[in-house]
């Protein structure tokens, strides 16, 4: 079943599901409302045999045009596309290995107390990838049984991949 049909099928049941304006190049990209993410993935997994979770990651789009990072400050030439949105954009790449279709799901959640449903039970691959996103972005995944820091040490202050992360020098610096 081509990706287009799957999209229409899903759109019938999930109202907020739309095609994103900014496509990930080469892959069909759909924007999913945050509440619908887990049901959508569940449907994809059970009905359309999307059995493989490639990637979970997030992108930080802060409200101010990102003058925080060093390089963005030095080269403010092109305005970021999502300036002023003040959201975390979560990116899920899910594929059906049997049919070779790979779709990209995006959902946006507010930057203040970010939280989203975990995909833990559906894809075990979500386990560590969500922990990584939690570690580096501080996004809370509801229903994740073991949401702890995975990469950075326990003593790490803040979440480094946020654009407004300011490094506090510690004993090793």
């Amino acid at each position, binding site marked *: 079943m081509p990706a287009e049909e799957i999209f229409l099928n899903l759109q019938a049941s999930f109202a907020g599901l739309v095609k994103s304006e900014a496509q990930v190049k080469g892959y069909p990209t759909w924007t999913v409302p945050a509440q619908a993410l887990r049901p959508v993935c569940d449907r994809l997994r059970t009905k359309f045999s999307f059995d493989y979770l490639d990637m979970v990651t997030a992108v930080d789009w802060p409200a101010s045009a990102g003058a925080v990072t060093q390089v963005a400050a030095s080269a403010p030439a092109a305005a970021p596309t999502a300036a002023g949105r003040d959201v975390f954009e979560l990116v899920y790449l899910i594929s059906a290995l049997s049919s070779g279709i790979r779709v990209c799901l995006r959902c946006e959640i507010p930057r203040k107390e970010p939280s989203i449903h975990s995909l833990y039970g559906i894809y075990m691959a979500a386990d560590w990838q969500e922990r990584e996103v939690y570690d580096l972005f501080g996004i809370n995944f509801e229903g994740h049984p073991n949401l702890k820091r995975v990469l950075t040490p326990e*003593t*790490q202050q803040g979440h480094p991949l946020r654009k407004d*992360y300011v490094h506090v020098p510690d004993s*090793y610096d």
Partner: protein
Amino acid sequence: MGIVLDNLPKIEALPGGSIALATSDFLINWSRNSSMWPLTFGLACCAIEMMAAYASRFDFERMGVFPRPTPRQADVMFVAGTVAKKMADPIIRIYKQMPEPKFVIAMGGCANCGGPFYDSYAVVKGVDKIIPVDVYLPGCPPRPEALMYAVIKLQEKIRKMKVKNYHGATALQETGARKLS
């Protein structure tokens, strides 16, 4: 340091003691030079080149460098790779577990001063911030021969060590250039 070495400097007072001391200095340094057992301990990219140095093409064992898995039996630690902050405490602990005299070779740019991760939030910029380093070896990663060269340089330093003014310190601490922090 053990009964022998602690009491050895005292024989200088005896007649002919200084010659005996020089002889023992030479023998001690010769044995330390000739059998330098590193810890099998790799952190990142440089560890692969370290492994290549043990392998057939370069064969570190020619110089008596024979890797030991436990720090208790090791003499020299090759800090081969990036020292992340999470790894800093284990490295300090491993260093403390090694018996004296112990030497450290910082291999590669990351262990020297952070290398390409000089502005990272998660990297200790140079292993000398946590443990004393005898020899710094540049390269990213250095060739295996360069590691051998570093060992040869370390041997040259060991050759200058003397039992007389020596209480558990390593080559550079004695000369004052090595700073403990």
